[in-house]
């Protein structure tokens, strides 16, 4: 089924397009692996002035994601955790092909996402949705809640009648916890609180009944009491609807609360990945150890040792040699400057990339 698009111009435009929509609809999950990401690279070229572009010998890139490999199981919540600039958001967006990878593969149900043709991509995006951080900017203030949630249905032309559309919208809004849904249908975003708006975003993402939702810092702009409701909602939807979540967050303690597995990212690389409780209770990579040690704890009597790293995350244009964490690592040795550490298996699914781990 590997034929190009009809006209040559189109084929050129979608050069990568070799996977067809039919392939996607017939693809199935094998061994519970929904996504298999292998050596994913996403580089962004740096805009240079005309003169520099003429003189410069090599083009420079921001290496947002630099050879990342991991799997996402069907029906799990995988948390991508790291500081700003570590590439967690880019990884999430690339999974949905909102960014094009510059190298490596993303296999969705065994099919390479980077080779999806335009039509396949449309079908794919019915199955893969995203929730953004700020519910104040990510929904249209001029549309009613009904229109916002119905838009994905209209764009993808999935409803045969107005009635079916209405039913599906009401179901999605109800499931997102705005009950009774009929009371919210014809309101506008400004009439809702931040938490309610985020529920509208979630309803918009779930109305197509997707397999996977990338939640990019969904609670970062919400108050504590509302935040926990949204987290609960994600867990509920995972359990009831079987939605797979990729939960992108800078807050390891929130990842710990709801996720099944955690992947800790640093400067475009996953440094540690494993079952949530295992990673938090038994962190192996020095970066993970430091991140866990600085999480504030609501208990003044428990004075814990903080491992505070010096400086800030380096620029992802000039990534340090060897282990990219070595300039800030409290446990670094000479060899760390040269050896790019491979993943070391700790137990089961728990891997960490550090040469100092005893196998």
């Amino acid at each position: 089924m590997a034929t190009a698009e009809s006209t040559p111009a189109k084929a050129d435009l979608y050069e990568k397009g070799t996977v067809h929509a039919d392939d996607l609809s017939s693809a199935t999950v094998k061994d519970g692996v929904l996504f298999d990401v292998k050596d994913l690279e996403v580089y962004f070229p740096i805009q240079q002035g005309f003169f520099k572009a003429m003189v410069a010998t090599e083009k420079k890139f921001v290496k947002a994601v630099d050879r990342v490999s991991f799997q996402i199981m069907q029906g799990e919540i995988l948390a991508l955790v790291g500081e700003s600039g570590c590439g967690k958001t880019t990884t999430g967006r690339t999974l949905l092909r909102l960014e094009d990878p510059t190298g490596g593969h993303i296999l969705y149900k065994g099919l390479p996402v980077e080779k999806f043709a335009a039509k396949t991509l449309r079908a794919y995006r019915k199955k893969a949705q995203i929730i953004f951080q700020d519910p104040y900017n990510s929904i249209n203030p001029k549309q009613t809640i009904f229109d916002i949630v119905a838009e994905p249905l209209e764009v993808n032309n999935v409803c045969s009648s107005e009635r079916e559309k209405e039913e599906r919208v009401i179901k999605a809004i109800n499931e997102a916890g705005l009950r009774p849904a009929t009371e919210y249908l014809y309101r506008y975003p400004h009439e809702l609180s931040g938490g309610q708006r985020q529920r509208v975003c979630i309803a918009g993402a779930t109305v197509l009944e997707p397999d996977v939702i990338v939640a990019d810092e969904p609670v970062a702009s919400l108050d504590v009491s509302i935040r926990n409701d949204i987290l609960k909602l994600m867990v509920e939807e995972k359990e009831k609807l079987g939605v797979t979540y990729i939960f992108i967050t800078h807050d390891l303690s929130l990842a710990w609360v709801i996720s099944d597995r955690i992947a800790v990212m640093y400067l475009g690389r996953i440094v540690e990945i494993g079952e949530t409780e295992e990673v938090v209770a038994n962190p192996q990579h020095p970066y993970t150890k430091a991140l866990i040690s600085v999480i504030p704890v609501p208990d003044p009597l428990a004075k814990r040792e903080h491992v505070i790293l010096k400086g800030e995350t380096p620029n992802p244009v000039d990534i340090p040699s060897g282990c990219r964490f070595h300039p800030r690592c409290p446990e670094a040795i000479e060899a760390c400057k040269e050896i790019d550490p491979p993943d070391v298996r700790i137990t089961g699914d728990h891997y960490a990339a550090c040469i100092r781990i005893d196998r």
Partner: protein
Amino acid sequence: MSAAKAKAIAPAKKPAERIAHKGILEVRGLTTYFKLGVGDVKAVQNVSFDLEPGESLGLAGESGCGKTTAALSILKLLPENGRIVSGDVLFDGRNLAKRTEFGMSKIRWKEISIIFQGAMNALNPVKETGKQIAEPIQLHEGLSEGKAMVRVRELYDLVGISQKRVMDFPHQLSGGMRQRAMIAMALACNPKLVIGDEPTTALDVMVQAQILELIERLRKELDLSFILISHDLSVMAETCDKGVIMYAGEVVESGTTADIFNSATHPYTRQLIKAFPNIHEKREMVSSIRGDPPNLVSPPAGCGFCPRCDEKVARCETEHPEMVEVQAGHFVRCVHAKSQRSDALVRGDEAAPDLKGV
């Protein structure tokens, strides 16, 4: 002395002599309203707390609970529609609530300074960061810009930014460095009291830890008193000696941080603490507080938290609870608090069955 001159201008009740005081700051019955078309928003009502020299105090609560307004009232930095209706702010024996604008200008930054939340918005984007920090020094100490810059370089050393960055514009600094520059600015005139309004909220965890460590070190070195305003109770637990929990413009619980976190008594405090995950304990879903805070234009007659409270009884709806001292220095505003001793609450205990029986 400038303060004496300011005193002469201010219509002080007790001229010449300072009011007897224990701590560096005593806030007594502070009440602040904002005028809106629909009526007065009662943002802060009858708030009292005090601070000893060298102590750190955390003001915490959900957004809209009045924590920032309370702090801005101390400095009288309220927006135009805001006013202090009643109450006293006794700072070092002077009542700031009764001071004139001119009188306040002698105190702001010289004796009390503030670190704002968004360092990018709080700094002037078209002026070198160092020169901005020099401004209060020139103003309050009457130094020339050159002499003030010498002090700015020392401050950069103190907060851990390279002296080479003095002439950088704010956009050239990273988020963490901008926050450090804000701290340097707050310390420019050797104040006695520094207020941090969500100083680490927009920062990454690791940078947050660096900034909190810096504040802690400076507080010890310079013997500063510090008020931390934060919505994040865990940050307050880690950095403060004393805590004040606010809800709907009122203080609902105050005491040492150990009192608040280890024998929390007000239902709101307990629910708020449970909303924060504790990574060192058993993994469980964090709970949320149902409902919304009340409208502060017409606050409810009874307890403000009553509609959201699991432990309410009939009189909660009609009777406005008074502050009760459940233990020395540990105050709670709840009708249940009278008949209850906080030492009955063992850490981790729900204590709810006891309360229901009241």
